[in-house]
């Protein structure tokens, strides 16, 4: 009896059973601040007293460890892998295993790597798991939708027409698939065109973050990051929007 089945898929829900909300940070294009947003959102929620995890699923170009200045950490082996905790956040990234080496992965490799990480990572009880995803609607995003069934999306864009054009497609796909979208954040805002709010009417625009030309100096230093204008904007957006309240999660 029974056709061949991959047991790793089956265990994902159990591994995430202690996680109240899963927020996937997504966007159409690279370089618009997704990883920075994911990392600072995780720090902010942690500062607000929540238990937070951060999962970097940008498998070929992981960067949240750089943003948070993580070096020399390794997950603990205990009937699976227990993510190390730093700055109050449990962090899992393929970088613990791939190190500085270029790791070129094609579609099926991405799916397998993600499946393995999801199946063996033993998160503690968490209020929020923040997931950093690579840009667009490629393999990793599709696998997040397929395997992290409770994931809600936080979509990032800039006011650039190029970024907006792609982000519209991301949002359209998420809506077609009935995936919850918390809303959109406009990053790197310069001037006050209001283009993003005019163009993206189907989902709430949660707020705008101005272009922070000092943010690069804070990369790798959590205290500086938390004092940045960028972090102040994220905190304000989190405090103002009910989409980041713990109680708004739904199963």
């Amino acid at each position, binding site marked *: *009896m*029974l056709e*061949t*089945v*991959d*047991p*790793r898929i*089956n*265990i994902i829900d*159990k591994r995430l059973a202690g996680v109240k909300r899963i927020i996937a940070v997504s966007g159409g294009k690279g370089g618009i601040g997704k990883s920075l947003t994911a990392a600072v959102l995780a720090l902010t929620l942690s500062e607000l007293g929540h238990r937070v995890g951060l999962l970097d699923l940008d*498998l070929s170009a992981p960067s949240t460890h750089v943003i948070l200045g993580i070096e020399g950490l390794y*997950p603990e*082996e*205990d*009937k*699976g*892998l227990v993510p190390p905790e730093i700055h109050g956040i449990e962090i899992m990234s*393929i970088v*613990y*295993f*791939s*190190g500085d*080496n*270029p*790791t*070129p*992965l*094609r579609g*099926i*490799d*991405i799916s*397998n*790597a993600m*499946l*393995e*990480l999801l*199946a*063996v990572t*033993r998160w503690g009880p968490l209020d929020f798991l923040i997931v950093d995803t690579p840009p667009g609607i490629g393999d990793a995003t599709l696998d997040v939708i397929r395997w992290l069934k409770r994931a809600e999306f936080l979509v990032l864009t800039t006011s650039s027409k190029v970024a907006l054009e792609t982000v519209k497609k991301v949002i359209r796909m998420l809506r077609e698939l009935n995936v919850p979208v918390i809303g959109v954040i406009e990053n790197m805002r310069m001037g006050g065109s209001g283009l993003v709010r005019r163009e993206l009417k189907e989902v709430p625009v949660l707020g705008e973050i101005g272009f922070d030309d000092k943010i690069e100096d804070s990369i790798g230093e959590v205290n500086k990051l938390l004092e940045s204008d960028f972090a102040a904007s994220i905190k304000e957006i989190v405090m103002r929007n009910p989409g980041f309240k713990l109680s708004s999660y739904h199963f």
Partner: protein
Amino acid sequence: MHEWALAEAVIATVIEESRKEGLVEVRKIKLKIGELQQIETEIFEFALNELIKVQGTLITKMKVEMDIERAIFRCRVCGNEWAFGDASKMSEEESEAIHFAPEVAHAYIRCPSCKSPDFEVLHGRGILIEYIKGR
């Protein structure tokens, strides 16, 4: 150890699938495990047995057959095929990294012929339950 995590996944899946099929007793399962998973079979078997003990009557008499499938790679650039076992000797750290996240083989292994990291894993990755037998 990730053997425990995978054993747990196997047991949970066997129980779920057997219940779906209305089985009252599982007698045998067969697992196909990719060599790339770098599983310590003794630890894996121990974990399976420990989990079987605490899972109640459905699987107490279950036998587990395991087939380790050799990992074979094919270069997407030059078409060369080679086995994981033939790859140049890896350090303990590299080997451990692959043990935990098999796909990071792409970070440490290159085609022995043209040195490309763009290779396909033809066989020998992942873990599959090939069948569940019972009544």
